[in-house]
């Protein structure tokens, strides 16, 4: 099944008045994994969408050998019906039917099994889709694309939701498909994946393809150098300096100690199941884990937003009282700053101005419009929020700048608080590009230098490794391993899956 050659020449894509792609040229050939890299908003996802015809193209040509029907796309957010079985989702839109349009599931099953046999991608066809693990759901998406007869597969950030082991498995599968002659293109933020698995790399910057070339085998032997070359191309200049955690005093006192935290959700599941950890003053502790293992609840419990939580949170030697009123919450907020992982749900008001967002919850402490304007200007400058206009609607900012607003508000506020003790950050740089991430990392390190205890929950192991003094692994609502930041992906990944020998 040789895949089609896709030639995209000098295309431009515009949404409203905003250019998503100014000029992009790329040739995708079958046989290798094509990686597409770039900052947020550089136009990577749009490039894929333009290839399958989803994006409003205003110029340029897209030529596909054998017609557009041969291409399938796996979106960043899966497009599966969660109430269906895997088999039903697999054939959705291309259902084999008998007389009078009757669904022929037996035939569907035969075809699906033949396909799984051929590709080596396995999914439990009878399981309800909502019960499948994230990795399985992704395999299901890929199978669905293949089932439709696609010989070219475009994937938009497929590994963002996967554990390291699952990601490796995915690339192995994609490699096999590519060797079998399929055309594969992957958009990703993770440099290490590109270096290990891609045979061809394309880099986009601000709506243009700035680099598109094969990766030679000998380049892989010097990953550091290759990474440097690619980073320069992505940033359009020198890469930002790497952050590292500040020196930690030997006799640093314990600032935060969480003991035996238990939280039972509405369905009776123990989402936090006896979680305990400590963080010292000035220490940055990273929490690694596969999504949905209690990270979100841990952050919310520390913030005081989970009234049903049992166990104790001790801060600077004093046990925090349960939060029963907004007054309690405000009190806790004077000692703890929290950044929630979903900035759109819990952090930002997209329809309010940047200025309003930067002082959300603090009007009681600021005296006068003059002081407020000064505070807003200071925060915008300190975190490099772009564009630096307090009146601009937050929803008009890019994801990276929105995150700067949320993190900036939390960190700047807590550093000025006389009762400051702890910062808890959930996914501080998720979906944020290298430049903004570097600003945010710098601010986190600075907070630790000022003596705050810092807890960082992240799905990005590279981030945790650069920032943390220690990495704790969370699995099914409890801490299952404590590892130094030098630990390999493999070992951390096994611990994240709850394997004993970690």
């Amino acid at each position, binding site marked *: 099944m040789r895949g089609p050659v896709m030639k995209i020449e000098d295309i431009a894509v515009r949404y409203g008045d905003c250019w998503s792609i100014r*000029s992009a040229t790329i040739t995708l050939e079958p046989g290798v994994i094509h990686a597409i890299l770039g*900052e947020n908003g550089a136009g990577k996802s749009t490039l894929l969408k333009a290839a399958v015809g989803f994006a409003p193209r205003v110029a340029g040509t897209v030529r596909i050998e054998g017609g557009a029907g041969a291409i399938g796309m796996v979106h960043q957010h899966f497009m599966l019906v969660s109430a269906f079985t895997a088999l039903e989702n697999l054939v959705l839109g291309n259902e084999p039917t008998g007389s009078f349009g009757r669904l022929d599931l037996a035939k569907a099953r035969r075809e699906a099994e033949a396909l799984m046999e051929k590709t080596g991608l396995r999914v439990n066809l009878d399981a309800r889709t909502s019960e499948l693990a994230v990795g399985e759901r992704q395999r299901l998406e890929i199978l669905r694309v293949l089932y439709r007869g696609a010989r070219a597969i475009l994937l938009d950030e497929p590994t963002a939701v996967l554990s390291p082991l699952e990601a490796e498995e995915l690339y192995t599968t994609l490699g096999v498909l590519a060797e079998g002659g399929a055309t594969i293109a992957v958009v990703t933020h993770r440099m290490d994946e590109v270096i290990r698995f891609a045979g061809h790399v394309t880099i986009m910057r601000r709506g243009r393809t700035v680099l598109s070339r094969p990766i030679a085998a000998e380049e892989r032997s010097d990953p550091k150098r290759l990474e440097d070359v690619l980073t320069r191309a992505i940033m359009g*200049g020198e890469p930002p300096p790497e952050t590292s955690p500040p020196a930690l005093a030997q006799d640093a006192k314990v600032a935060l100690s969480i003991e035996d935290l238990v939280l039972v959700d509405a369905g009776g599941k123990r989402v936090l199941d006896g979680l305990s950890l400590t963080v010292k003053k000035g220490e940055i502790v990273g929490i690694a884990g596969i999504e949905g293992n209690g990270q979100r609840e841990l952050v919310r419990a520390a913030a005081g937003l989970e009234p049903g939580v049992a166990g104790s949170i001790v801060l600077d030697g004093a046990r925090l009282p349960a939060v029963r009123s*907004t007054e309690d919450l405000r009190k806790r907020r004077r000692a703890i700053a929290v950044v929630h992982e979903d900035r759109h749900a819990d952090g930002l008001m997209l329809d309010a101005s940047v200025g309003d967002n930067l002082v*959300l919850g603090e009007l*009681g402490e600021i005296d006068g419009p003059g002081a407020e304007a000064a505070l807003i200007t200071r925060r915008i400058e300190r975190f490099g929020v772009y564009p630096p206009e307090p009146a601009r609607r937050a929803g008009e900012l890019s994801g990276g700048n929105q995150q700067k607003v949320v993190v900036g508000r939390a960190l700047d506020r807590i550093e000025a608080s006389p009762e400051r003790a702890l910062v808890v950050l959930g996914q501080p740089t998720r979906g944020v590009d290298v430049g903004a991430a570097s600003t945010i990392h710098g601010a986190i390190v600075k907070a630790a230098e000022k003596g705050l205890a810092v807890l960082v929950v992240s799905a990005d192991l590279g981030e945790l490794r650069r920032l943390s003094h220690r990495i704790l692994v969370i699995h099914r609502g409890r801490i299952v391993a404590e590892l130094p930041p030098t630990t390999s992906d493999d070992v951390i990944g096994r611990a994240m899956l709850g394997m004993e020998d970690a």
Partner: protein
Amino acid sequence: MNDKRVRALLPIVLAIAGGILLFNLIAFAFGEAPASALRVAFEGTWGTPYGFGQVLFKATPLLFTGLAFEVALRAGLFNIGAEGQLALASLVGALVAANLPASLPMPIALPIVLAVAAAVGALVAFVPAILRARRGVHEIITAIMVNRIVDAILPWTFSTVLGSTSLRTADIAPGAALPRLDRVVPSFAGSAASFAFPLAVVIVFAAMSLLDRTRPGREIRWVGLRPEACRAEGIDVERRMLLAMLLSGALAALAVSSTALGYKGYYELGLGAGAGWSGIAVAMLGRGKAIGIVLAAIFLGTLEQAGLAVNARVPKEAMDVLEATLIVLVAVASRVASKRTGVVQAADPEPEPPRDNPAPTPASEEARS
């Protein structure tokens, strides 16, 4: 700048022109020479001082109810209970006003009556407000039910408690009455426009400015935008919702100033009815701006008065159809208008000359991310 304004206003002008055309068609269908019905409508509203006074009179309660709806809307709440809030507040307010000593001067009597009415309005709004804030019961459902309860209570109060067969209260004390505008503008003579109109305009501007500038006002708006984020940052979401809803009820109740106090001199069953509903349209057309609310209220007041003016020639039902159609047209047009200006603003920073060899520093690049 001017060009942008014109572009923004054009759809609204077109919508009104469309409405005038529709009006002519309706008049024609009822056997009137189109232009003559239009002339009657114009003379009955903006064409004569009396007509204009009547427009202001019709617009006054809508200013209060429109503002009331806007305040609740800022907190993300739909206060469709203004009908009931205004009705009960009018009754209690008029009863208090009727029982004040006749010698009480206006600077004392009027504030007392308005305060009582506002308190009653807030009290009626308290039921849906507390149920929403504490228990999450949807305020639309509870407000509809409260409206029905008030609807039932009023006639019963008149007939049983007050023992009145005419379904009206006694005349209010002179100190509680708002004087007519024709005292200062003699050409308004005969129209029912009272000092309630300037009072309403001042309250609209003052309230909107307070909502934009003060801590409670801003927090109300933030709570309406994203309650989860506000809760996480320590804002008392329940209290802000409650405050917005009580304010809304109190403001709706102040419309009594233009009906019982400024016009009739007593309250009778059904006085001011419908203002609560029209207030929703006023707030929607006003788009969150004080001047918008004032213009929208005058616009709806004009339509109401025009309907009365041509009533002899074209049936009132036809005018109701026209009124509803015009509101929809203007609502659509103002959406289109605001979208246009929105895009123009967003586009400002973008148009950037294409550069083929950009060599920005990392810092500037990072800032743009």
